[in-house]
């Protein structure tokens, strides 16, 4: 275990983390402390936002307004505006919830787990992905609330001292969900903010306008960059990383319990927790790529987010994608091997029933297309990688659709089978939540350093050391 203090920027170079293992090309060789600070800080402080930002933000904001309309209509009319019914009592809301939570996994995985295992290539993307995590979890958190028949009593799921002595029913996975998701959000938020503090101080120091100075100054919490500050900061940061790391595994495991604890064929499966976690990281990385690739182009950040970064993320996607594919195979195998007729007919219905085409779309999007990642040419071609990541993102949404809807629409009692047809409001809420996500992301890009200045500076110094 390396003491935290030794990873502090400006600490003794000899104590740096196994430099010989450190991969090359994580940062352009010409970069200096000054150029890094200027390049990243100026996006927030002085640069005019590019046309693409305005355009993107406008689209995102329009979608956010669509979400507001959808939510208003939902609260006014009730969940009947969606396509849900009996037997498919869960629809897009739960699909979207699981999807967003999955997307929210990459950030913490990149920040915490890669930090703990000293993968320094994370440095230039961690800030970004942490923000993405927060926003994704925020989007995810909306859905379980909105999908309640009576959303105004959502707090009954919390263990609070009720005057009637009522508690949540702790055997229900939905209660576990409340804890898992709220903990994850809280830890992710603190972790992200802790990482931001040195950069906020940098912005405060470089801000040309008084308002910026005051706001960033307040947010920097009096950071002065003293060695003690750095030491405490890094201890806290590592501790938080240690806290966050298991959450990456636990959140989606708990989310998967929503399904695997139930007795519905297609849900009741022991493979779900690892399979969900792998799927979450899979889609999380895909979302990072889908966002990072355009942004590095627009903001000319290729020198910070290099092809090597893209390559690594593609490799992680390939690995988790194979795990997910294994999950698909095991589901089918277990359906056959169990000899359980409900499982078997669930599998047959999944593949050949009325929603069979969606299942096969899932196979193409999530299993077949990502096989292109075996090729390094694809992995280092931003456009190709963007498309593969897009396929995975859609594929992972479709996977949740398959799990939630095709399992429910035909379960035990054939007389009660039904179909689920999404309505306009189902779609508008889905795209609206993307609007919320993108709006938050655009605001983040505009007002906060999207790449960690302090950590990249550390990278520069290490690069320099290595040259010497």
């Amino acid at each position, binding site marked *: 275990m390396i003491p935290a203090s030794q990873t502090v920027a400006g600490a003794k170079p000899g104590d740096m983390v196994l430099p010989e293992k450190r991969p090359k090309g994580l940062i352009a060789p010409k970069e200096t402390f000054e150029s890094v600070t200027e390049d990243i800080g100026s996006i927030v402080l002085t640069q005019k936002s590019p046309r693409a930002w305005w355009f993107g933000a406008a689209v995102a904001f329009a979608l956010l307004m669509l979400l507001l309309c959808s939510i208003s209509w939902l609260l006014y009319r*009730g969940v009947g505006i969606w396509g849900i019914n009996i037997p498919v009592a869960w629809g897009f809301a739960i699909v979207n919830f699981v999807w967003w939570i999955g997307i929210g996994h990459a950030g913490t995985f990149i920040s915490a787990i890669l930090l703990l295992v000293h993968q320094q290539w994370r440095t230039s993307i961690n800030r970004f992905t942490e923000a993405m995590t927060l926003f994704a979890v925020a989007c995810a958190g909306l859905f379980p609330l909105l999908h309640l028949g009576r959303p105004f009593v959502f707090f009954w799921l919390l263990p609070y001292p009720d005057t009637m002595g009522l508690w949540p029913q702790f055997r229900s996975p939905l209660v576990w969900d409340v804890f898992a998701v709220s903990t994850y959000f809280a830890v992710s938020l603190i972790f992200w903010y802790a990482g931001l503090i040195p950069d906020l101080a940098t912005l405060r120091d470089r801000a040309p306008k008084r308002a910026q100075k005051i706001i960033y100054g307040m947010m920097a919490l009096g950071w002065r960059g003293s060695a003690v500050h750095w030491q405490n900061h890094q201890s806290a940061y590592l501790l938080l990383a240690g806290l966050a790391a298991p959450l990456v595994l636990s959140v989606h495991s708990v989310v998967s319990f929503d399904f695997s604890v139930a007795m519905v064929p297609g849900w009741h499966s022991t493979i779900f927790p690892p399979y969900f976690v792998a799927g979450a990281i899979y889609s999380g990385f895909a979302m990072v790529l889908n966002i990072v690739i355009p942004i590095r182009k627009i903001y000319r950040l290729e020198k910070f987010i290099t092809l090597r970064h893209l390559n690594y993320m593609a490799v992680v996607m390939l690995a988790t994608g194979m795990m997910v594919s294994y999950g698909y195979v095991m589901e089918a195998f277990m359906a056959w091997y169990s000899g359980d007729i409900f499982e078997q007919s669930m599998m047959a219905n999944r593949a050949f029933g009325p929603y069979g085409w969606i299942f096969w779309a899932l196979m193409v999007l999530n299993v077949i297309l990502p096989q292109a990642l075996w090729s390094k040419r694809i992995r280092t071609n931003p456009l190709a990688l963007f498309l593969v990541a897009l396929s995975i993102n859609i594929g992972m949404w479709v996977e949740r659709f398959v799990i939630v809807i095709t399992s429910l629409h035909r379960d035990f009692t054939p007389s009660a089978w039904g179909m689920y047809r999404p309505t306009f409001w189902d779609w508008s809420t889905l795209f609206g939540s993307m609007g919320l996500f993108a709006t938050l992301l655009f605001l983040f890009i505009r007002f906060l350093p999207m790449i960690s200045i302090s950590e990249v500076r550390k990278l520069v110094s290490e690069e320099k050391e290595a040259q010497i």
Partner: protein
Amino acid sequence: MNASSPEKLWRSLAELANPLEFRASRHAEFNSGDSEPHKVNRRDFLRLMGASLALAGLPACTRQPIERIVPYVKQPEELVPGNPLFYATSMTWRGFATGLVVESHEGHPTKIEGNPDHPASRGATNVFHQASLLDLYDPDRSQGITGNGEPDTWENFVSVLSDKLDSQGAKKGAGLRILTETITSPTLLNQLQLLLKKYPEATWHQFEPVNRDCVIEGSRMAFGEMVETHYYFDRANIIVSLDADFLYGHPNSIRYARDFSARRRAPQPGAEMNRLYVGESSPSVTGTNADHRLPICAGEIDGLTRALAQRVGVDAVSEHIGLPPDQQEWVGALAVDLLENRGASIVVAGENQPSAVHALVHAINHTLGNAGQTVTYAETAEAQAINQNESLRSLVRALKINAVDILVTLGGNPVFTAPPDFGFAEYLPKVKLSVHLSADVNETSKLCNWHIPLNHYLESWGDARSFDGTASIVQPLILPLYGGKSAHEILDAMILAPGRGDYEIVREFWDMKSNGDELKWRRALHDGLFEGTSASSKKVTLQAINLPPLNQRLAEPALEITFRPDPTIFDGRFANNGWLQELPKPVTKLAWDNAALISPNLAARKQLENGDIVEIGHEGRRLRLPVWITPGQPDRSVALHLGNGRRTVGNVGRRAGFDVNILRNSEAWWFADGVEIRKTGAKYQLVTTQTQHVIDSEDRQIFREGTLTAFQNDPEFVRKNSESPAASNTLFQPQEYHYDGYRWGMSIDLTACIGCNACILACQSENNIPVVGKDQVARGRVMHWIRLDTYFSGSAANPEMKHQPVPCMQCENAPCELVCPVGATLHDKEGLNLQVYNRCVGTRYCSNNCPYKVRRFNFYQYADYETPSLKPMWNPNVTVRSRGVMEKCTYCIQRISMARINSEEQNRKISDGELKTACQQVCPAQAIVFGDIGNPDSKVSKLKRHKLSFSMLGELNTRPRTTYLAKLRNPNPKMSA
């Protein structure tokens, strides 16, 4: 599983049509004319204001009738708020009375039950009786008298009518016509006779679109007079129905269902069962219960009957009857079975069959020695049994030649229902004074000068006879909500203006009959019937039957159309009843619409899918309506249901269904040959509550069945194939719940269940279950707490059909309880699986985890909080659910509580049978038994020990409290399946 288990299951998924958006039924708020005065002068305005002020105060009052009415079950010294009172009354359906006991809370009738003492009910009702409660509170009911479309008064009406009648005096009433529906009311008959005495030249006509003309003519053909045939299905071993839906559509069907099921209920291995053969032109409730069912065109039944008659030795048939091979075989085996059961069999002909078939069936029953044994004859309960088509025809003839000055139509809707070839609607406006008494403003009201709102039977006095002749009183429970009138009052006004109230009229008649015996009257009110008034049986002699030559079917591809009353909205009179519109029709499970029912073969040949609009052409008249592919429908016959597609109707019935009456005519009243059908390419969205698909495996332990022979050979066959794990086979605490008191449970006998839907509506009425509308049904959001699942097996052309009522299973290991995050669904100390509405947050997880899918969710605010007239209908003991909460069957927990309170007051336990759930109480087949399974001697405990008892999806170890008795059929061993 046994040989006749669901072998090859065959239907492919019927994709529903494009989800066309049909607007929910709310459209125009008012029918023009009924509530908006067009030209208001100052006087009218003041009068209306006064009237509305007076009305405004009324809804707050307890609207108890002022006349003396006698509570039925209990007679508390005074009305105790919160304790319901029960009153005996009766409702007529198809003219005949069924005794009812109506629950009243603080003066509001809230639930209709059958009168256990009444011969036509024996405690049960059918769907129409249940739904009639909603008709009482229907906000679209006619709410005032109109004269030529303008709001008017009773006094004005009476004076206009009197003036006109005065001018009839000289003509002895030659220009006066009365048109009624089928009437069994002794008082009404008396009034009509008085009227006809006053105006000897006046004529009384009767017409109903679902009439019994063929039955009447058939009886005349066989016996030379009209006698009513009574069947004793409980005495028959072999029952043959020739297109007769005696379990559902017959005026006495409730009684017949009970008798029929008596020979099927919970059979013991040694017991015998009756055997039902049904040859029918469209799958009916009766047909689904058949042991041998033959899909046969309505027009071929004549030939089949002749062949059968020939074989059992009726000498009226001399010519040789050539039958197709399948019918030949069927008739052959059937005849042998009948001959082996002389004196213990019944042959019934359907009301849609020509009189010759009825006459032959009478002859068959006589030849088989059934007459006097299983079949008896008696004086009809009808006031005057006449050929109603001919009656209406003569009325139209008189209209045509302007011979009618006054036409008083008491009930009915002949403009909508009369045979189009009569042109009734065309000639009706020629009458100088036409008066129409009806509950709603319908097609006929629009064409009459005067419209008088008809009082509901729960708001007026009257009387009627049941099918067996027993007279019963129609006792009101509430003052008329909208100041309507009854037929008695109109006739009384015609006899001696200004007329009296219906109480005086009915009372006077019965006082006359009983010489003013007050006790007798009170007794009749209390019991709901006049003891000993049933028609005595009548000796009949079979006459030589002169059979008309047998009609030959037209050659292919000519098709046949058959007309039948709609199984839910009947002849259209229930078109504005949301409960009935939303009630899934037996077999097809269609709601809110009718369709042309076609066979799978015909659909394949014409390349038709469900919801394809076809054009049906017959003798130059064309009708467009969607088709519904119905297994068991004869290939060359298309079934059409009457009563749909009403044009002048309230908000509920608007845009529901297609009017098939256009194709009907008086010559081809029930069916017509030589019809062509053409695909139009257009689509229409039909909605069902049960989607159709292949069941992939027979191993799903949902429906258990077998044959009587198999059961006798191996009484354990059901248990052997059930995989319910032992209660101790669990890793968790096997004794998680301890029950010290009652343990409620239910057993449903699938052999006894006839599939009549009554349980669904009884539950809807008892538990304040809302109507959701066609759009919501299409989305799979119907709210019924108990549903009736129908399964098919065998060939698509002639499948076996079976029904399974599915309420909440009240599982011991309830999957729903585990997953609710707020504990809104939980186990109570009597083993009930409770749903706490005000704790429910609406995650719907419980429904996902329910393997039976019996939970229902309020996706919108379905319960109508707004409409004032619907509020008093609600059962005050059951929460009216709000949006966003889950609900489900509670085993009528409010009734359990009531019984518990009563028993605890008397310091005793609830006795077995004292407490009935709504579905149990209404069931004419007595297929549902509820009680304490902790008491080993209770009826339900015994049934749960029955060898046929099984749990639905038992292998899931949910350990349901609701269990089933497997369905047994009793096929003829000599016939191939």
